[in-house]
């Protein structure tokens, strides 16, 4: 205890240097832990987005790309699959249920998804959780819309509100489908997935919105809502479809069949596999980021070492005094090692606080921007190990000035050539 209290007082005496060192270590620790957390949470976020869907089918494209736009609403489909193909596949005996998806439009930056009411029963997320309604019901009419939780909250929409769909996925569009507004009939409960930022309408609704758009430009005379309802609004093509199988052992067989489908080039993706491919792709970048963060921590600790070492010469007198009052050389060694340990301890503690502060502040921003929900939980075992490792390294580094001090005090004895 003697050594520790001496160390504390000694550091207080050099508090500005000590503070700089502590802040350096704190920032680097927060960076390392933060990078790791982000990595883990991003993976969990992705994995939790979809559950219980056996295959995702779409026009031929890369596996990851299909998954990204169909499920995560990231990116855009390059081409669509034909409605006939979808019907054909949906009728396959191995398929238990199927849900078509149509993407491509937006409302004030939020994506619009055209689908069937079965979406609300078959789409699962997390560990098999189903979508729940916070208010209202699924769509039934052509112009009904169901909002994700974030859409309703951020735009302040409630049941009965009218909204207009824009063509394209931008936040602002110069071409609105004003003539045919949609009405909110349902609002979903929070899921922590891209569902929250999506507006759901029926396939007929999307078709209605694009009536007369075949030329790629806005129609001159838009039909009335009543006339639209009376029309035949079966889609010609869809962006993608979700499939659930009777038995998962048929997965490979059906996947191969769809990939080899004669009438149209298609891709069938097993979500778990595509996600894994995505993570393997990201893995290199993740590891690089982690390595860099570890180096930053190393730099922070080296800074600490430099600070302690550079002040050592002035402290030889101090060590001679301690020797004179009875300190053993090993106690002098311990004094310096405990200084390194104390600095690292304060630094890592501050670092953890910074981490939680940043997470707390950044969470709503990240969620709004990327739909990624960051769980703010206590430190995991691995994170404790990382902290302990930092402390251990700092202590070992403290052995360097400790040893020098030890040698000084042996050589100097009670007199010092200052």
């Amino acid at each position, binding site marked *: 205890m003697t050594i520790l209290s001496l160390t504390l007082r000694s550091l207080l005496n050099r508090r500005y240097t000590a503070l700089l060192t502590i802040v350096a270590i704190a920032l680097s620790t927060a960076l390392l832990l933060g990078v*790791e957390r982000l990595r*883990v949470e*991003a*993976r*969990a*976020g*992705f*994995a*939790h987005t979809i*559950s*219980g869907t*056996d295959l995702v089918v779409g026009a031929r494209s890369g596996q990851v790309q299909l998954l990204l736009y169909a499920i995560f609403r990231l990116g855009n489909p390059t081409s669509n699959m034909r409605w006939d193909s979808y019907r054909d596949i949906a009728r396959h005996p191995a398929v238990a249920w199927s849900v078509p998806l149509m993407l491509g439009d937006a409302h004030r930056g939020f994506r619009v998804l055209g689908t069937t009411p079965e979406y609300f029963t078959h789409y699962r997320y997390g*560990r098999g959780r189903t979508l729940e309604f916070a208010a209202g019901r699924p769509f039934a009419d052509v112009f009904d819309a169901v909002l994700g939780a974030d859409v309703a909250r951020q735009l302040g929409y409630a049941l009965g509100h009218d909204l207009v769909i824009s063509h394209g996925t931008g936040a602002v569009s110069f071409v609105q489908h004003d003539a045919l507004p949609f009405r909110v009939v349902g609002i979903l409960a929070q899921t922590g997935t891209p569902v929250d930022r999506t507006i759901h309408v029926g396939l007929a609704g999307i078709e209605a919105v694009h009536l007369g758009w075949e030329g790629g430009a806005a129609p001159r005379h838009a039909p009335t809502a009543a006339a639209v309802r009376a029309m035949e609004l079966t889609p010609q093509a869809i962006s993608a479809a979700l499939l659930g199988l*009777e*038995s*998962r*052992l*048929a*997965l*490979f*067989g059906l*996947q*191969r*069949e769809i*990939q*080899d489908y*004669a009438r149209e080039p298609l891709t069938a993706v*097993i*979500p*778990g*596999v595509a*996600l*894994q*491919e995505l*993570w*393997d792709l990201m893995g290199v970048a993740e590891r690089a980021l982690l390595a860099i963060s570890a180096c930053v921590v190393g730099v922070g600790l080296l800074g600490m070492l430099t600070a302690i070492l550079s002040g050592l010469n002035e402290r030889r007198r101090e060590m001679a005094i301690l020797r004179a009052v009875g300190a053993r050389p090993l106690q002098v060694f311990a004094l310096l090692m405990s200084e390194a340990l104390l600095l690292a301890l304060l630094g890592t503690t501050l670092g953890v606080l910074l981490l939680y502060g940043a997470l707390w502040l950044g969470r709503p921003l990240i969620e709004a921007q990327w739909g990624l929900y960051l769980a703010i*939980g*206590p430190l*995991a*075992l*691995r994170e404790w*190990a*990382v902290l*302990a*490792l930092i402390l*251990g390294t700092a202590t*070992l580094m403290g052995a360097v000035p400790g040893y020098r001090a030890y040698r000084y005090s042996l050589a100097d004895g009670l007199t010092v050539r200052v």
Partner: protein
Amino acid sequence: MKALLLLFTALLLLACSDDTTTPAALPPQQPAVDLSHALKLEWYELVPQDWQPEAAFDGLGLESMEDDDPRVQEMMARVRKEWDQAPVIAALDGLLVKLPGFVVPLEGDGRSVDTFILVPYYGACVHVPPPPANQTVYVTSKEGGQVRGLFDTVWVIGKLRAVAQSTPMAQAGYTIEALRVEPFE
């Protein structure tokens, strides 16, 4: 000093591991099922003696055709059908088994995979048809063994179900409720 060095090394290894699960969520101890009695299976043992997957190819003359020949598609479809109905060995039903294989992940939470299909070979390429139904096993694992991801090699230890005929409840084929999933050394 030695103890400190050992501790340091242990911490280093722990920190570098990919295990990010928290200790708080330890699964409740299973009632003692003796896993050492699990029957170690080879993949060929899952196939009945009298059924040969290659037999489906006899007489089709596939070797002489190009990959994109439309007749190939047709024949592969036929082969596919036959393989999807590949028979299982009923005698294996209910046994505690230990089977090695490669993981094709289906459900997980980003850290571990708790539902996957176990296959006997690595990768799936376009030229080779996917394995017949009796060479794939559907595995569910409550604990979510530390399967890192795609094509990880593991040992699966658990109770094997072998269903011969498709019913509304279950399709023909093998399933294992895994009691333990360990990395394959």
